[in-house]
Each structure stands twice: as C-alpha cells, then as structure tokens.
C-alpha cells in the first residue's frame, strides 16, 4: 500500500472535500472515504446522488467535528465544559445531543456517561448521531440505498442492491484481519465497542476503572444514535449487558469475552447472515 499523507488530529481537515471522488463501481455505486472526527468515514452511495450530495454531507461532518470535539479548545463542547459558554450560546445541536445523552444515561443505569474521563465529553453519543444524521442527509438528497461507516459504526439505509440486503462483517477482536460473524438486513444499524484498536479505554463509571470483561460487543438495531451509545454502555457493563439488551426493544447483541467465549441475545440470530 502506498504511503499517503494522513490526518489524525480531530481539528485537521481537508480544505475542499468535494474535489476528491472515490471510485465508481460497475453497479453504478460510489465508494468514498473521508478523514474526519479522528477516524475515517466510508460511504457507499448511488453514484448520481453521491456526486451531488456528498460534498455537503462531508462539510456538515467537519462542522460537527469542530463543534463537538473535546480535543479542540475552541469547540462548543470545550467551551461549555470550561464554563465559558452557556448552552444557549452553543450550536442548537449540542442541546439535542445532551438530551439524547441524558436519555441513554438513565436507560443504562448510569453506564453511559458524558464525563467518561472526568471532563465533559459527549463523544460516546456524537459519532453515532453524526453517522445517522449523514445517512439521513443522503436520504433527503434522494438516495434510498446507502451505507455510512464512521470508524467501525455503520448505518445502512435500504439495501445494498436489488433484493440484496446489506452485509456487515464484524471484525474479530482477538484475531486481527478476521471476521467473527456477518450481520445482514435492510435499514440496519451496527455498532461495535471494544479494545482491539485503542486498548482498554472504556471506563465503567461505577468503578472508575477500564472495563475488561469483554473483548468486544456488537449491537444491532435500526438507528445508530442509540445502537452506538448502547454499545458503549454495554461494553462498560460487561457480561451483565446481555440481560440489559434482552430488555430493550429492537436491539440485539453479539459479544466476545476477553477469554474468547461468545454469547448473543435471543433475537440476534435473525440478523445472522
């Protein structure tokens, strides 16, 4: 693989995302990837809609990065966290995100938190919310079938091709480069929390220590905002997440424990490829 310049800082961004187009496949679909939010977003969209709509979606994602990044000193999240700005002085979307955070926090018995490292940081919800919003923007632009992957969390709309549901491989947390399973469906949201990429970094808010019972947990549902935030909370919960997810309507889970054992919720089989 050729060495490419990489942008790793959340504050760095490309000047004009619209100048680069990804490869258009034989089936008339466009693949594009964009460095944003400290990770890479991957898009699979109909080529005609994508060429038209992707530039504004990418601009919006960079705006969301600048607004919500806890690493950028001048972001709304940083200014609110330091008490330098009131919520009313921040982007309206921040209030929306905080409302969603409060819901997930209550529903998860406090396993989801907006202060994971002590300081104010709603990142546990922002990425999934931004991915789902990007997918909704593509729908509003006329696309019925597309998929957006933000650093390993995926929102799929419609289907991958005529009568072909989306298929999302789940990376094996203990065997690099291998898949643990494949989930499939229409209008599918898939999020995985785990230690494979960044090590133990999800803190159990009740103990203050990094959660280590699971190697990874994958949640499946319809809307990535909740699916992704629940995945973060479920990882902090460990094996107790199984009963919690069973109690949630419309969500299923597949987990691989630190020792390599596997469990899944009752309804997960409906998503198995």
């Amino acid at each position, binding site marked *: 693989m050729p060495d490419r310049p*990489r942008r790793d800082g959340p504050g760095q961004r490309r000047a004009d995302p619209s100048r680069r187009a990804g490869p258009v496949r034989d089936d008339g679909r466009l693949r594009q990837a964009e460095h944003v939010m400290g*990770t890479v977003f991957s898009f699979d969209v109909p080529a005609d809609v994508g060429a038209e709509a992707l530039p504004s979606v990418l601009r919006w994602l960079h705006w969301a990065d600048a607004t919500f990044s806890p690493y950028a000193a001048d972001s709304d999240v940083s200014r609110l966290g330091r008490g330098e700005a009131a919520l009313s002085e921040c982007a309206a979307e921040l209030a929306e995100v905080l409302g969603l955070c409060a819901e997930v926090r209550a529903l998860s018995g406090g396993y989801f938190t907006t202060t994971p490292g002590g300081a104010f940081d709603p990142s546990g919800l922002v990425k999934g919310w931004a991915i789902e919003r990007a997918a909704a923007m593509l729908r509003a632009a006329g696309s019925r079938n597309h998929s957006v992957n933000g650093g390993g969390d995926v929102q799929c709309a419609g289907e991958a091709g005529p009568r072909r549901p989306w298929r999302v491989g789940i*990376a094996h947390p203990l065997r690099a480069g291998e898949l*643990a399973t494949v989930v499939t469906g229409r209008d599918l949201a898939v999020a995985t929390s785990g230690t494979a990429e960044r090590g133990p970094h999800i803190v159990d808010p009740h103990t203050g220590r990094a959660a280590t019972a699971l190697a990874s947990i994958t949640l499946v549902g319809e809307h990535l905002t909740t699916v992704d935030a629940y995945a973060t909370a479920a990882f902090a919960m460990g094996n107790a997440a199984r009963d919690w997810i069973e109690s949630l309507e419309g969500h299923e889970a597949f987990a691989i424990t630190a020792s390599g054992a596997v469990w899944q919720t009752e309804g997960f089989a409906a998503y198995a490829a």
Partner: protein
Amino acid sequence: MRRALLAIAGTAAGLVMLLSFKSHTAPGGGTATAGGPGPPPAGQGSSASPSPAGLNGAGSSGASGNGTVSPGTRVVTGNVANTAYGPVQVQLTLRQSKIIKVAILEQPTSTNEDIQIGNFAFPKLIRETLSVQSARIDMVSGASYTSKGYVQSLQSALDGGSA
C-alpha cells in the same frame, strides 16, 4: 438440549474458537495430516509425510499439525477440546487465509442425545463458518479505529484506497 447446544457454540466464531490450533508446527511436535504433490509453502515445516488424505488420517489426541494437500492449501488440525459434553476436535482446510473446508474429527457420542445434537449442530456451525470466512460484505463494524488504524483495516480494503 438447549443448554447443550449453547454450550457447543451457537456461532461460527464459537466453532473456530474450539480450534486453538498453532499456526506453526513445532519441530517434531506436529503430525502431518495429509500429503500432497506440491511443495509446502515457504516458512512451513516440511515434515509432511504422505498419508491418505481423509478425516480419519488425522493426528492423535492433542496434536496440532499442518500439512499440504495442494499448492497454496493447508490442513490444520486443532487440539482436542475437552468440553463438558466430551471431546471435540476440528480440522480446517485453508487456502491462503480462507477456510474452505471444516471437518469434525471427534465429537461427543456417549449418549443418543449427544449424537442427535452433534448431527444437528455441527453441520450448521460448519455452514456458518464457511459463509463467514468467504462472505461478500459491504462494510465492517469493529472497535473504533483511528485514522492510522484505518489504513490496516478490512474496511480500507473494501473502500479501495479512496481515503
């Protein structure tokens, strides 16, 4: 019945995890499972002695072995996993890193129920294993990668280097 099924696995990952095979044969420690016309891939031991290719030609209990059946194809035999229901041993045939065949060398047979469960569960798990490893996929979900981590990811390969 249900409990036993769950214990056996339930997913393709579960079956693969029963393997616990070593990827390289320790000198003298491996048992060749099959011989073939082609030379062994570089980096592998050349201890494969020709023997009939077949499930029952597998190594003895506890052995892990690599053998060559044709150029680019390897047979790997897992260690015997002693489950609560009896010993299970699995053998894989791989072409490059893809699993192209799964054979169950040993499965619990001490009761009729064991046999019934095995006859139901193992073919299902084998199908799942093969479909996962050779699956066409559109996207990959996994622990959040950084921009650097993306370069090494399966997702990057799917995107065709457009980032």
